[in-house]
């Protein structure tokens, strides 16, 4: 059993998620009585492998989730995969996987490109580091979910405006529900991003006092991109809130959610390929490692 679990690799769950995504895409082409079960089976198998992989790393490689950029991305993907499974089981006729699974796969791809080295930690910084990581994780997952709901809102509104009956295998949730999810996730994303940023400042101050890690300067790319992301999410939430009582409010919120995910994507890419002192041990001389958003 131990040998089996230790043998699980990223490829195992990526392949399962990819097959589940292929099943989702095939909904548009033809009907099948077996596809729903196969889709859920592959997604569940991928999720199980994903869970065991993270669990194995946490127990045997001291890589507590959120302790490295690699684990952070994989945990974000894991949360979205859990959301996909839950939504698919609750609403089997809604092709939510067409929108969520590509995000899951993209996050796993980002994990592969990021560092697996754990952040240096002491008991004091461990708590603040976990808080910082969790809030940023919640913000990113909320942005992704909001964008998926926003995109689905725009597609559904387009169909209703064209006065077309729903396509076979492509029945979207109602605009009312999608607008509700978009609005909720926008609010959660903005405030968790603020909390993540503030906890990052506290963590930085603790690190500076204890000399465990590099103090990240205000001009560091990670600080700048996170500040830009937080600022945008606050502005987006405020704009969506202001438009709430307007007839085009849900449409504005849907577009804002798409811009938010674009800003997050740019931020992640900047993190993957940019240089930073974020998460570097105090002894490190050169800023060579990327960090989680």
């Amino acid at each position, binding site marked *: 059993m131990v040998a089996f679990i230790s043998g699980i690799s990223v490829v195992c769950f990526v392949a399962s998620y990819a097959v589940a995504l292929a099943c989702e895409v095939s909904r548009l082409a033809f009907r*099948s009585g077996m596809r729903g079960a196969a889709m859920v089976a592959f997604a569940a198998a991928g999720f199980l492998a994903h869970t065991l992989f993270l669990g194995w790393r946490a127990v045997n490689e001291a890589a507590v989730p959120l302790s490295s950029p690699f684990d952070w991305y994989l945990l974000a993907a894991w949360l979205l995969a859990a959301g996909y499974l839950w939504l698919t089981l609750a609403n089997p006729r809604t092709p939510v996987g067409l929108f969520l699974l590509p995000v899951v796969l993209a996050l796993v791809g980002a994990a592969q490109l990021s560092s697996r080295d754990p952040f240096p930690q002491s008991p004091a910084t461990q708590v603040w580091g976990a808080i910082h990581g969790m809030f940023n994780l919640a913000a990113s997952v909320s942005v992704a979910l909001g964008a998926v709901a926003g995109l689905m809102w725009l597609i559904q509104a387009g*169909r*209703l*405006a064209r*006065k077309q*009956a729903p396509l*076979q295998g492509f029945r979207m949730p*109602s605009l*009312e529900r999608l607008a509700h999810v978009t609005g909720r996730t926008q609010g959660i994303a903005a405030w968790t991003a603020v909390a993540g940023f503030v906890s990052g400042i506290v963590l930085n101050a603790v690190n500076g006092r204890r000399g465990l890690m590099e103090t990240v300067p205000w001009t560091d790319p990670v600080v700048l991109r996170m500040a830009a992301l937080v600022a945008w999410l606050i502005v987006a939430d405020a704009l969506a809130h202001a438009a709430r009582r307007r*007839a085009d409010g849900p449409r504005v919120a849907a577009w804002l959610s798409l811009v938010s995910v674009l800003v997050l994507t740019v931020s992640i890419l900047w993190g993957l390929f940019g240089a930073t002192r974020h998460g570097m041990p105090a002894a490190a001389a050169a800023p060579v490692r990327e960090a989680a958003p």
Partner: protein
Amino acid sequence: MTLALVGGTHRTVPLDLRERLAFSAEQAAEALARFRDRFPGREGVLLSTCNRVEFYAAGERNAAAPAAEQLVSFLAECRGIDAGLLEPVLSQERDEAVARHLFSVAAGLDSMVLGEPQILAQVKQAWAIAQDNHTAGPLTGEMFQAALRTAKRVATETALGRERISIPSVAVADFASGVFERFDDKRVLLVGAGKMAAETLRYLREAGARDVTVVNRTAGRAVELAARLGARPARFDELAAEIAAADLVVSTTGATEPVVTEELFARVEAGRRGRPLVILDLAVPRDFAPRIGSRPGVWLYSVDDLAAACEANRRSRQREMPAAQAIVDEETRRFMGDLHHRSTAPVIEQLRAGWSETGEAELDRLFRRLPTLGDPERAEIRQAFERYAAKLLHPPLSSLRSESRSGPPHGLLDALKRLFDLKD
């Protein structure tokens, strides 16, 4: 084993004759009781809906299903109609065609509205009435079970019954439900008293709508309609305020000019505070100025819009026909194979009994010659004999089953009877 069917549908029987031929549940029960007395030992099921009257009969070899002429006369007698009137309009089928027809009917492939699901409940009811009146039996039982299985497969494996094709159902299920998640917290406004308003309201009620207001140009008519539909009446001069408060409007007035102009709607809009509004304008000419539909948050659908969606759904159902037909064919083959195989049961029983008898006699002889054998050894030898017999019997029984798939295996049965000296 024989199956017979006599029946007529909206395609073959004129409405006035269909009305006379139709059976209520009580009349069907009486007819089946009469069938039981007239044709003892036979099975019968009567399916009577507003679009079809069909009598399914079945019988074993020594009591075959009644001939078509007998069934036509029987139906005519039950309903007091001249059999001469029925003969030219009722279709008659035997054996495989009966099963194929029933499976198509149960799956909604033979319905006036292709793929409509109500027929399945009517088939189940017909079967229940036959069971209650003791005219159902093993043959019709298997056939009706197979029909229900076929209908379920068609419903799950094809999209035949998925898309709605009536304007009110499309309006509610494909459009209003695309905007709103639930209707129990929405305010519905009916403007006018057109025929489709009540039908649309029925679908809205099924979806959970509770708060319904009726506005009509004639106050008395609004009160009357509201009482009939379980709604709240409102005066026509309150129309603007009611639209401002509504989430969904169903409009079916007979007005020759738009009842709600763009200017009127612009005045109403401010009071709506951005809430989305679904307007189902089912009136011809239209009650709402078409440009209202281009305002943000307004989802306006006219009869033509909904009819186009219905037509698209209808075409989509038609596209599913080959897949549905393939399921019916497959289930018919399977059912007929099982039915033919069933007719081989007496021969198989005789064959098994003969081999078992011979085996027992040989074992007795062997055990008498070897009295020192203990019980475990005897049991082993007995098992070996049984396995040997089963293995020898397997090829002919397999051939019988496979031959049954393409029709009654009369040739093989005769050969087995002659080879093993089996009696009828």
